[in-house]
């Protein structure tokens, strides 16, 4: 036996050991002995030394991984550092110019008093003062925009203006709140202040080649969820291998209350001397051609674009600038903050683009784990289809085949019908649409204005407590219609049928701002006639905007029934909720309750305020909630399905109002609720839910009092119930108290 402390292995021995390590990095002692026996080269090695070798090998592997990770972080930090230093440099130059001008002008003013200066001196001051102002929107001389040279001139101008925004201070940029400065963050995101329209800027590092980044960014429909279509109407090559494209971009409307926007733009792609790639874009005036705006409002894109600089190791530093004028004046006043918010622009466009590029980079570099044997691209396709389908439903473009049905007198829910869904639905749905009984697709939509409800909180609640708003019967109908043998008569009983959900995660994006999951709905049937209804149903669900630090961001919950087989090309008919915050305006009066949006608009146009409004409250965080549910229907059952959908959405609106009341901080109740609760509304709501849940699970009544009675009575009875143990948890940074009442199980 070799007794020296340091064992030296021959190359053949190392090779043999490495082979075993590759298969099994942590062999048991039995395995180790077996190895010594079977492998002739290692036969004279002490078993203890083998154990040590494997220990060391694992340790080395760990260290190697650590080193590689640290190197990646180092690269990112260095890139960030470079960006920050450049910005610092620019800012210092800017400040020193301003200080110089400032001093010069003071001097001028001082000497002016004694009036010994000549006119020409003053003129110089005036001119140089102007140069320090924000980039003046110079009047563009009339150009022949139908010739390539004219277009090229516009293109070059666009390039200069874009660059001055991306790397200069042509727009007054302000750091966006909530962006973490760590190495995993998106880089620097800033939003505009005091400029025409809204603007946002982001920059950071991604590990993809510039050409690939450019390709991804130019494909707007893939990362911009609100993009309906992008048509490149002509392509003109320029010198240096660049191109000029004339593009028509059509977007979806984020709510049902204002029209969608479209753009007619020129996009110029070229490379600079230092090897950077630039893609810049701006709107052209209607005189240059382009499709006329039909159901959309024409918006303006001011010089925006992408600057992609190569970075060592095959990466790129990307600067993204989005500068848009959405014609906010043409939307109802209550919605205007949405169209004037650079934060929302940043979230939906600038950061969406950046995150998507990062996502692709990580997938390409193999840093994403595959889930359940599915390629990330297939899962991304699911997400995109869900988003798109939902946006389609909300927007309801006439040239997609949607027509509005007459309502039943109340304006709260709109029903739209599409008898030719081939145009917009997934191609997969056509398999169902060729059936002779197929009547079309029906969409029920509603909008609500919410007060003091954090979008992320509401959507999180809707996702986690589906049973609070969903109707099992309706879900059963949707699920059955997938299978081309739908129910003859849809059921719309108000939420008596109990069900629960199990959420199975599928995929999420790098920064967890969006995730895809499968929801299994389990029906619990207690009576014989319901057994037939009780079945497991599956939903594909996409949830976005509810991550931890997502205060004040848009949140969305979109889902579609899906067959158990989960084929990649399964037909999807999405429904869901979208909550968009309206940034607070300090000067407008406040409504102290959640309102149906129609009544708000009436109140404003009529000039009178609904009674019960409380003015002058400290908080004014409003948001718009858009609800859209889609169903297929057979030919003869259109009216039935319409009635079911209308009732369903009405119920959901009621549920959301209840939830919003519970989530929002307690305040004086208005006439919206029939009773005023001296106790905390959250606790009373919870008490009701507990009673309901008890009834559902055991079939009996928990309390002797009718749950529709005054909330106080319910709470008191529950409190004094012999079996209740109360534990309460209060999340301080969330205005939502939850009380857990545990009941020992009865044997």
């Amino acid at each position: 036996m070799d007794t020296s402390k340091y064992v030296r292995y021959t190359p053949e021995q190392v090779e043999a050991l490495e082979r075993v390590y590759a298969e099994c990095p942590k062999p048991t002692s039995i395995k180790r002995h077996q190895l010594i026996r079977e492998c002739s080269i290692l036969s004279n090695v002490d078993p203890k030394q083998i154990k040590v070798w494997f220990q060391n090998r694992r340790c080395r592997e760990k260290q190697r991984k650590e080193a590689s990770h640290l190197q990646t972080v180092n690269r990112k930090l260095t890139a960030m550092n470079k960006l920050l230093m450049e910005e610092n440099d620019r800012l210092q130059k800017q400040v020193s110019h301003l200080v110089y001008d400032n001093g010069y002008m003071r001097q001028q003013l001082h000497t002016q008093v004694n009036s010994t200066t000549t006119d020409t001196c003053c003129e110089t001051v005036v001119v140089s003062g102007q140069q320090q102002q924000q980039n003046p929107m110079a009047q563009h001389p009339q150009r022949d925009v139908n010739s390539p040279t004219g277009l090229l001139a516009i293109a070059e101008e666009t390039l200069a203006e874009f660059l001055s925004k991306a790397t200069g201070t042509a727009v007054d940029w302000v750091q966006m709140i909530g962006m973490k400065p760590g190495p995993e963050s998106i880089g620097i995101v800033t939003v505009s202040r005091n400029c025409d329209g809204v603007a946002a800027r982001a920059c950071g590092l991604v590990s993809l080649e510039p050409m690939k980044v450019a390709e991804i960014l130019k494909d707007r429909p893939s990362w911009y969820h609100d993009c309906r279509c992008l048509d490149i109407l002509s392509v003109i090559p320029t010198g240096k291998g660049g191109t000029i494209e004339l593009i028509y971009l059509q977007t979806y409307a984020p709510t049902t209350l204002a029209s969608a926007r479209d753009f007619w733009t020129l996009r110029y792609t070229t490379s600079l001397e230092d090897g950077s790639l630039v893609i810049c874009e701006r709107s052209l005036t209607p005189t240059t051609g382009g499709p006329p705006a039909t159901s959309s409002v024409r918006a303006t894109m001011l010089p925006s674009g992408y600057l992609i600089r190569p970075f060592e190791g095959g990466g790129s530093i990307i600067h993204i600038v989005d500068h848009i004028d959405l014609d906010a004046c043409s939307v109802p006043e209550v919605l205007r903050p949405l169209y004037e918010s650079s934060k929302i622009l940043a979230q939906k466009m600038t950061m969406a683009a950046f995150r998507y590029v990062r996502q692709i980079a990580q997938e390409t570099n193999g840093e994403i784990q595959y889930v359940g044997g599915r390629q990330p691209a297939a899962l991304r396709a699911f997400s995109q289809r869900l988003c798109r389908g939902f946006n389609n439903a909300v927007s309801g473009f006439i040239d997609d085949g949607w027509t509005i049905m007459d309502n039943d007198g109340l304006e709260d829910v709109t029903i739209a019908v599409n008898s030719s869904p081939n145009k917009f639905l997934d191609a997969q749905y056509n398999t169902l649409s060729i059936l002779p009984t197929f009547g079309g697709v029906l969409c029920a939509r509603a909008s609500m204005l919410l007060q003091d409800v954090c979008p992320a909180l509401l959507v999180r609640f809707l996702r986690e407590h589906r049973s609070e708003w969903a109707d099992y019967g309706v879900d059963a109908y949707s699920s059955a219609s997938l299978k081309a043998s739908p129910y003859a008569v849809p059921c719309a009983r108000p939420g008596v049928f109990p069900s629960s959900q199990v959420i199975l995660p599928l995929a999420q994006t790098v920064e967890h701002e969006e995730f895809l999951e499968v929801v299994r709905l389990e029906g619990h049937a207690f009576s014989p006639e319901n057994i037939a209804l009780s079945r497991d149903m599956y939903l594909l669900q996409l949830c976005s905007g509810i991550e931890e630090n997502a205060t004040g961001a848009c949140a969305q919950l979109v889902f579609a029934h899906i067959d158990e087989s989960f084929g990649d090309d399964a037909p999807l008919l999405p429904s869901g909720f979208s909550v968009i915050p309206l940034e607070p305006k300090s000067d407008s009066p406040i409504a102290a309750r959640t309102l149906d949006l129609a009544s708000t608009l009436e109140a404003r146009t009529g000039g009178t305020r609904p009674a019960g409004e409380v003015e002058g409250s400290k908080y004014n965080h409003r948001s718009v909630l858009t609800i859209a549910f889609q169903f297929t229907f057979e030919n003869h059952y259109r009216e039935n399905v319409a009635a079911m959908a209308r009732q369903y959405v009405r119920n959901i609106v009621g549920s959301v109002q209840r939830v919003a009341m519970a989530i929002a901080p307690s305040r004086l109740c208005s006439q919206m609720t029939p009773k005023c609760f001296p106790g905390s509304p959250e606790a009373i709501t919870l008490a009701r839910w507990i009673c309901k849940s008890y009834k559902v699970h055991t079939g009996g009544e928990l309390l002797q009092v009718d749950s529709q009675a005054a909330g106080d009575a319910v709470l008191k009875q529950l409190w004094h119930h012999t079996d209740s143990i109360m534990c309460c948890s209060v999340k301080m940074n969330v205005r939502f108290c939850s009380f857990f009442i545990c009941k020992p199980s009865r044997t």
Partner: protein
Amino acid sequence: MISILQFKASNTAMERQNSELYLRNCQIMMENERLRKKAQRLNQENQALLSELRRKLAAINAKRKPEFEGDMGSSSASDQMEANKRQALE
């Protein structure tokens, strides 16, 4: 073949470097924010100074005008000095 100890040493050094970089980045970020605010303030000041200068200039021009149209008789001494200077230069 790098030994484990060497790895560990290099990793510690890299970690320290990363922390320093991170801190430096945070510092620069704060500095940039400060500079931005300063630039904004200076810009506003400059605007104010500029408009004041313009006002003064307009006032001077207004005072000068009467001389071109003929002596109004009420020009101040300093304006008279200006007028004399111009005549001297011509």
